[in-house]
């Protein structure tokens, strides 16, 4: 607990720098990642992330030191090269894009690992810490590194801020963007460059192996919470910033621990939470909606059954026991019990010693469902030429979805009918 407090108080200047740096890097890659995901280039982002490694190693081998600017330049170059090669392979050969991405990713990463091993065995003392690029280490973000990488991150955020509407349009409809005269090729090039830059600065805290998660996961998670691009970008950035700060904390308390996996694990948890809990689009919301609909169908079916029983007796106030209802319509017992209880609460059904009976309001509701059922049956026989003995099943489910507008339209189409295809009376609107 003490360490958390120490971390949160930010009294240590080092902690301050590392945290601010991590937040900045994480947020900027999430912002750029939103466009990567919307343009369906998530896999390309992964390839770039891996292709950065040989650049880092080559830059170190050529200069013999870990100058952040030089490393940044080297990784930027190989990252870019990998993209050019992917595009070239896709354009000039029969190989499809996914295969080209797979090829480029593994070749570049392979070369990177080869070079890294060579450097480690070269005996150059300055090389220590270079392997941090594999899994990341937020704690290494100090001094010159922080300034360089932080500046790039700010540059990324500014570019997106300035060209927001252009990036939005080319992500949505590239052809249209070209026809209104936007410099689409230039913008695409810039967006790709931004992606590469996001990767290059992000590897400091996460490392090349897991970098693509920093691009893709926040965007995918944020998409669940909103239908607005601006809001989506903001949520993605916020989630990522939080995880970046957490990564810095891990790096601070356990310096031996690789930061990347921690950040990515946290991000993944946030993403899973979003998939499940997000309103409307989340799994839970969808499940609850399903359940609500099912319960509504059960209740309407019970009302309908009571109504049909009443119809045969020509008297609707009579009470029926559970058995009697079950005889008329088979329903799972538990569900029926729940349904009856809910109907009682809504005052649509009342309970007495003999069983359950429709109230006045209940009868009206039942009448509405039966009416929709019979209208739909009639519509099917008249407009779809379905045989009258085949229409019942269909109407059983459609009766629950028909809206008052559709009901009105059906009535007009069928010329205000009074009987259904089985010559049963269609109850009129109360």
């Amino acid at each position, binding site marked *: 607990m003490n360490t958390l407090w120490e971390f949160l108080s930010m009294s240590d200047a080092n902690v301050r720098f590392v945290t601010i740096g991590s937040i900045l890097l994480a947020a900027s890659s999430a912002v750029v990642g939103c466009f990567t995901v*919307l343009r*369906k280039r998530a896999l390309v982002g992964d390839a770039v992330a891996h292709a950065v490694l040989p650049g880092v190693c080559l830059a170190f081998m050529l200069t013999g030191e870990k100058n952040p600017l030089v490393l940044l330049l080297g990784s930027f170059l190989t990252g870019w090269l990998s993209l050019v090669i992917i595009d070239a392979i896709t354009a000039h050969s029969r190989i499809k894009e996914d295969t080209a991405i797979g090829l480029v990713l593994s070749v570049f990463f392979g070369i990177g690992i080869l070079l890294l091993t060579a450097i480690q065995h070269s005996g150059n003392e300055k090389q220590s810490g270079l392997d941090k690029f594999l899994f990341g280490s937020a704690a290494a973000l100090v001094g010159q590194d922080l300034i360089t990488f932080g500046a790039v991150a700010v540059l990324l955020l500014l570019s997106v801020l*300035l*060209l*927001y*509407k*252009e990036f*939005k*349009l080319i*992500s*949505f*409809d590239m*052809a*249209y*963007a*070209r*026809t*209104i*005269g*936007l*410099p689409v090729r230039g913008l695409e090039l810039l967006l790709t460059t931004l992606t590469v830059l996001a990767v290059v600065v992000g590897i400091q805290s996460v490392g090349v192996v897991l970098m693509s998660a920093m691009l893709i996961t926040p965007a995918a998670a944020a*998409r669940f919470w*909103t*239908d*607005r*691009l601006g809001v*989506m970008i903001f949520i993605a950035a916020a989630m990522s910033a939080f995880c970046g700060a957490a990564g810095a904390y891990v790096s601070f308390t356990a310096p031996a621990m690789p930061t990347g996996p921690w950040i990515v694990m946290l991000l993944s948890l946030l993403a899973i939470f979003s998939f499940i809990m997000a309103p409307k689009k989340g799994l839970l919301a969808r499940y609850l909606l399903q359940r609500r609909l099912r319960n509504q169908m059960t209740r309407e079916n019970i009302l309908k059954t009571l109504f049909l029983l009443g119809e045969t007796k020509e008297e609707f106030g009579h009470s029926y026991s559970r058995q009697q209802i079950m005889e008329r319509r088979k329903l799972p017992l538990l569900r029926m019990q729940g349904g009856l209880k809910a109907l009682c609460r809504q005052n649509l059904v009342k309970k007495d010693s003999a069983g359950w009976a429709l109230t006045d309001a209940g009868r009206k509701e039942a009448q509405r469902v039966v009416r929709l059922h019979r209208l739909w049956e009639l519509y099917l026989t008249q407009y779809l030429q379905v045989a009258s003995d085949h229409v019942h099943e269909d109407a059983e489910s459609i009766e629950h979805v028909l809206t008052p507008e559709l009901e009105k339209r059906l009535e007009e189409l069928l010329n205000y009918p009074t009987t259904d295809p089985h010559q049963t009376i269609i109850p009129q609107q109360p």
Partner: protein
Amino acid sequence: MIQHVTEPVLEVHDVTVSYQRKPVLWDVDLTLPSQALVGIIGPNGAGKSTLIKAIMGLLPLNSGYVELFGKSLKEVRHRVSYVPQRESVDWDFPASALDVAMMGTYGQLGLFKRPGARERKLAMEALEKVGMQDYANRQISQLSGGQQQRVFLSRALAQDADLYLMDEPFAGVDIATETAIIELLRQMRETGKTVVVVHHDLQSAQDYFDWTILLNMRLVASGPTHETLTPDLLEKTYGGRLTELSKVSELLHKKNFPIRETKPVRK
């Protein structure tokens, strides 16, 4: 039957277009009058969409040139508006109907500038014209096919151009929407605009268009509708491809031949 006009709104001069070295349009040469509702008609794979994409500069030309209002596309871009096929984009994109309509103003706005109240008003007006004002804030994936089509139309309207090129604006649209759209296009024609529409229902083509282009890998006819929609010309358009043309296309593709020896000269 290829009728030319003087002072055309659009001139397609001897244009050949290919996909992956396979010519799909051969030597198309036509001119269109101003203030007309023009239909491009032909069977599947006839190159209807290809033609308007080529006009909009979305596909490279193997030969020939396109002139709009007597100028190159670059000079008059703001006077031309394009409505792509509805399926060409992912409607799950996080945007509202208003967002999409607003994209029509981006061209005028220029780089870096953010759309403001003026652009919002223009987009709202465009949505009203297609009867979508009540759906302005709806996420686009929640709209029906016909509504999405209308949103695309409103984006083009927000551009306020003089020539509109529309790729199958009636595809997947119910009859009420289709009538509303064609009524709108007629109004646009009355205010002096020219509207070119890719269409594939012959029956309605007769009443909709006053100029018709018949296409099947080559230009079969271009002229006033009553002169082009004749049994004879329709037979030529729909009576199968010209086998020789398909065979030569196939050869060019297989042997990797250049389609023209020289690149087209920019006029």
